[in-house]
C-alpha cells in the first residue's frame, strides 16, 4: 500500500491537487468513451484498416489536421488557464510550478504540435492533388512521419498526469533545464517528444521535396506550379536544413541530463549560451516553416476569390527563396541581449530588417491581385483579409521594431515580444491554416462548412484575438515580462491584463463556435456538392470531391499556370497522358508505421524515466521493423481497370 502511494505521488502526482485529479478523471473518461464507442460500433477493424494502417496522403493529411485541432484545444485550454491567472494581480488560482508547466506546454504544443501538423496536414491533403500526382513520393515514410509526430505529441501530453510536465519554457534554456536545477522527468518529456516528432518532420521534408520535384504531371514546369506548392517546396527545404539543428541540440541536452555531461552545464566548461545559439539556428527558420505555407494558402485564396491571376508570380517565388536564405542568417536576433557584441548585433539586426523587404513584396502582390478583381468574401477570403492587417502589424511594424538591436534591449522577453509573435503566429499561421482548412474542406470531405456559423466563429475569434494581444504591447512597454505567474498591484498592469483575458476568452468562444460549425455542418450540410465550389483555378478542383484513392484516373497534361481555370474557360484543352484508363499502381497499406511510432513512444518513455530496458526494447523493435521493410519487395498493388472504371462511373466521370 505504501509502495502504491509512493508510486502515486511520484508518478501520478496525486499530491498536486485538483487540477491533476480532474485531468486524471477526464483522461480516464475519454479513453473509456473512445473504447466504448469503438466497441459499440464494432469499429476497431474499420479504424485499423482505413486509418491506422493507411498510407494514403489524403487520409494522413486529415489525421494530421484532426490531431492539430485537438492540440489547438489543449494549447488553448493552457492559454485560458494562464489568462485566468493573470486577470487580476496577486492571484493564486495556479501555483508557480503549475503556471510554469502550463506556459511551457502551451508554447511547445502550439508551435510543434499544433502549427506544424496543421501545416503538414494541409500540404498532405493538397500538394499531390495540385501537381497531378497519385500520392507522395514515399507514402510509407509519410505514414511513419505521421505516427512519429502523433506519438511524440502523446508523449508530451502524458507528462501532465504522469511524472510532471516540463517547466523550462518552450525554448527550454539551460542551465535552468539542467538536472542540477530541474531534476524532474518533465524536461526529459520535452526533449523526447520533440526529438521523436522532429525526426518524423525531417522525413516529411525529404518526402515533399522529392514529391514536388519529381512527381509533377507532365508539362508542369517549376514556374507553372501553384504558389502553394512553391511555398511547400521552400518549407520542406527549410525543414530539411533547419530541423537537424534541433535534433542535435535536443540530443546534447539529453546527454547532459542523463549522462551528466557538460554541453550546457555551469561547471566543467559547459556553455549554456551555445544551447541558445543552436536552438535558434533551428528556431528562426522554424518560424518561416510555419508562416510560408500560410503565405502559399493566401496566394491561392486571394487569386481564387478575386477571380484573377496571381500578380507578380515570379516575384513571389523570388521573395520566398530570398526569405529561405535570409532566415538562416538572422537567428541571433532572438538573443541580442546575450551580449554577443556590437558587430554581431548590428549584422543580425540588419539581416533581420532585410527580411521585411521580400515580405513586403508579397503583401503588395496580394493587394495587386485583389485590385480590379471581383472579391467574394467567403470564409477562406475572410480569414485572409483578417491576416493582412494582423501580419502587417505583427510581422511588419513590430517585427522591424524588434530587429533594431538597441530597442530590442527594451522589448526582449517582455509582453511586447509576446504580443509580437502572437500577431505573427496567430495572425499569420493560424489564420492562414484556417483559411486553407475552409478552402480545401470540400475537397477533403465532399461537403461545405456552413458559412453563417463560420462567420460567427470568425468574428469572435478575430475580435478576441485583437482584444487579447493589443493590450500586451502596452504591458511590455510598462515593464511586464513574459512567464511571470503573478504580478503585484499598483503598477497599472491590471487593466490591460484584464482586457487581454477577456480577449482570450473571446478567442475560446470563437474556437467553440468553429467546432460547433464543423459538427453542425457534418450533420446538416448537403453531401455531394459541386466538385469545384469556389470556381477555383488549380488542378485539385478538376477532381471529384472527395478525390478517389488514386486521385487521377488518368494523368493530366499541364499547359500552364491556373490550368483548371483555363480549361473551364475553354482556353486549354483537357488532355491526358493515357488515352484510356490503365491499371494503377498504388502502395499497400501497412501497420508497421503505426508500430514504429508506438515503439518510438516506448523508447522515448524509457528515456524520460531512464528505464533503459524500455529504451532498448523500443529501439530494437524499431530496428526490426525497419529491417522487415528492407526485406519487403512487394509493397505495391494494382487497382485493375474495372475497379477504376466503376469508381469513376459512380462519381459521374465516365
Amino acid at each position, binding site marked *: 500500500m505504501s509502495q502504491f502511494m509512493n508510486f502515486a505521488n511520484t508518478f501520478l502526482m496525486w499530491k498536486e491537487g485538483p487540477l491533476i485529479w480532474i485531468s486524471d478523471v477526464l483522461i480516464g473518461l475519454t479513453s473509456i468513451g473512445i473504447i466504448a464507442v469503438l466497441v459499440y460500433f464494432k469499429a476497431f477493424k474499420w479504424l485499423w484498416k482505413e486509418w491506422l494502417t493507411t498510407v494514403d496522403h489524403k487520409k494522413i493529411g486529415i489525421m494530421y489536421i484532426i490531431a492539430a485541432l485537438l492540440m489547438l484545444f489543449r494549447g488553448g485550454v493552457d492559454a485560458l488557464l494562464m489568462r485566468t491567472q493573470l486577470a487580476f494581480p496577486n492571484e493564486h488560482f495556479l501555483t508557480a510550478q503549475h503556471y510554469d508547466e502550463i506556459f511551457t506546454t502551451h508554447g511547445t504544443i502550439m508551435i510543434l504540435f499544433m502549427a506544424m501538423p496543421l501545416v503538414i496536414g494541409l500540404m498532405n491533403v493538397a500538394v499531390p492533388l495540385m501537381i497531378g*500526382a*497519385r*500520392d*507522395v*513520393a*514515399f*507514402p510509407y515514410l509519410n505514414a511513419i512521419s505521421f505516427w512519429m509526430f502523433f506519438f511524440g505529441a502523446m508523449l508530451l501530453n502524458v507528462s501532465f498526469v504522469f511524472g510532471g510536465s516540463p517547466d523550462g519554457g518552450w525554448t527550454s534554456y539551460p542551465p535552468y533545464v539542467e538536472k542540477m536545477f530541474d531534476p524532474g522527468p518533465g524536461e526529459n518529456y520535452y526533449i523526447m517528444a520533440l526529438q521523436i516528432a522532429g525526426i518524423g518532420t*525531417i522525413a516529411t*521534408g*525529404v*518526402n515533399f*521535396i*522529392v514529391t514536388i*520535384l*519529381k*512527381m509533377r*504531371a*507532365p508539362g508542369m514546369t517549376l514556374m507553372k506550379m501553384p504558389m502553394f506548392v512553391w511555398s511547400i517546396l521552400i518549407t520542406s527545404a527549410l525543414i*530539411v*536544413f*533547419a*530541423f*537537424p*539543428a534541433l*535534433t*542535435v*541540440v535536443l*540530443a*546534447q541536452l539529453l*546527454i*547532459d541530463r542523463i*549522462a*551528466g*555531461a*557538460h*554541453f550546457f*552545464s555551469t*561547471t*566543467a*566548461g*559547459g*556553455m549554456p549560451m*551555445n544551447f541558445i545559439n*543552436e536552438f535558434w*539556428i533551428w528556431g528562426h527558420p522554424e518560424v518561416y516553416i510555419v508562416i510560408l505555407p500560410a503565405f502559399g494558402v493566401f496566394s491561392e485564396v486571394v487569386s481564387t476569390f478575386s477571380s484573377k491571376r496571381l500578380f507578380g508570380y515570379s516575384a513571389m517565388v523570388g521573395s520566398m527563396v530570398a526569405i529561405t536564405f535570409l532566415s538562416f542568417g538572422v537567428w541571433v536576433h532572438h538573443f541580442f541581449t546575450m551580449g554577443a557584441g556590437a558587430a554581431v548585433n548590428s549584422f543580425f539586426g540588419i539581416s533581420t530588417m532585410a527580411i521585411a523587404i521580400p515580405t513586403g513584396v508579397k503583401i503588395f502582390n496580394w493587394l495587386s491581385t485583389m485590385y480590379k478583381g471581383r472579391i467574394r468574401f467567403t470564409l477562406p477570403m475572410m480569414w485572409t483579409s483578417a491576416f493582412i492587417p494582423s501580419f502587417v502589424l505583427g510581422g511588419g511594424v513590430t517585427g522591424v521594431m524588434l530587429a533594431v538591436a538597441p530597442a530590442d534591449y527594451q522589448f526582449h522577453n517582455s509582453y511586447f515580444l509576446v504580443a509580437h509573435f502572437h500577431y505573427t503566429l496567430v495572425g499569420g499561421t493560424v489564420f492562414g491554416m484556417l483559411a486553407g482548412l475552409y478552402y480545401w474542406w470540400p475537397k477533403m470531405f465532399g461537403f461545405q462548412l456552413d458559412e453563417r456559423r463560420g462567420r460567427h466563429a470568425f468574428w469572435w475569434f478575430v475580435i478576441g484575438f485583437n482584444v487579447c494581444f493589443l493590450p500586451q504591447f502596452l504591458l511590455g512597454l510598462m515593464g511586464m515580462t513574459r512567464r511571470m505567474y503573478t504580478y503585484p498591484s499598483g503598477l497599472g498592469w491590471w487593466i490591460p491584463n484584464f482586457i487581454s483575458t477577456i480577449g482570450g476568452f473571446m478567442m475560446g468562444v470563437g474556437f467553440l463556435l468553429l467546432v460547433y460549425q464543423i459538427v453542425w455542418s457534418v450533420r446538416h450540410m448537403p453531401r455531394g456538392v459541386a466538385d469545384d465550389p469556389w470556381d477555383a483555378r488549380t488542378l485539385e478542383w478538376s477532381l471529384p470531391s472527395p478525390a478517389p484513392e488514386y486521385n487521377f484516373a488518368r*494523368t493530366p497534361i499541364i499547359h500552364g499556370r491556373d490550368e483548371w481555370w483555363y480549361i473551364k474557360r475553354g482556353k486549354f484543352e483537357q488532355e491526358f*497522358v*493515357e488515352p484510356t484508363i*490503365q491499371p*494503377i*499502381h*498504388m*502502395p499497400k497499406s501497412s501497420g508497421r508505421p503505426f508500430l514504429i511510432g508506438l515503439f518510438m513512444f516506448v523508447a522515448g518513455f524509457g528515456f524520460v524515466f531512464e528505464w533503459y530496458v524500455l529504451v532498448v526494447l523500443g529501439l530494437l523493435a524499431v530496428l526490426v521493423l525497419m*529491417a522487415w521493410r*528492407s*526485406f519487403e*519487395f512487394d509493397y*505495391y498493388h494494382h487497382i485493375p481497370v474495372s475497379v477504376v472504371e466503376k469508381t469513376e462511373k459512380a462519381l459521374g466521370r465516365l
Partner: protein
Amino acid sequence: MESAVNHAMIAEHELQHDVPLEFATEDGSLRVLGFWVFLAAEVVLFSCLFATYIIMHGMTAGGPTSKQLYDVKGFAWETFFLLTSSFTCGIATFEMRRGNKKGVIAWLLVTIAFGLGFLGFEIQEFVADVHAGATMQRSGFLTAFFTLVGTHGAHVSMGILWMTSVVIQIARRGIDSMTSRKMFIVSLYWHFLDVVWIFIFTAVYLTGKVI
C-alpha cells in the same frame, strides 16, 4: 513519359534501358534523390556538432587537452581504414553497374571488413581515453569530442548493419532494379561517412594536435 503513369511504383516495363539500373525505374530514382536530400540534412546535423566541438575545444576545465589525448597512430589507422573502405565501396558500385553479382558481394564484404576495422580502432581509442580518466563527464571539451566522434561511429555501425542487409538481399535476389538501388544508396551513405571523417580528422584530430 510512361513513368508519369505509374509514379511511385515500380514496374519492370517502365525500365529505361540506357541509364544505370538504380535510376532506371521511377521508384529507384525517387529514392536516390530522396537520399541525397537526406544527406543534405545530415550535412547540417554534423555541422552543428562540429560547431559545438570547435567552440568547446578549449573548455577543458583542467582536464586532458586534445594535444595530450589524441594518439596519432590510432587516428591515422582509422583514417586509412575508412578511406580504403570508401574506395572498395566505390568499386562495389562499379561492379554492380557491370552486373557482376559476385564482385559486388565480395567488394561489399571487404568494405564491411574495413568498416569493422575502423570501428575496432575507434572503440580501442575510446576505451583507452576512458581508462586515462578522459570521460565524457570530465569536461565540456570531452563531452563535445565524444559526441561528435561517437555520432560518426554510430553512423558507421548503422551503415555496417545496413550494408549487411543489402549483401544478403543481393545474394538472394541478384542485381535487379531494387537491389541495385539499395546498393547505390548504401554506397552514398558510406561515402558520405567518409566525407564526415575527412573533416573529423582535419578539424578534430590534426587541429587538436596543432592547437
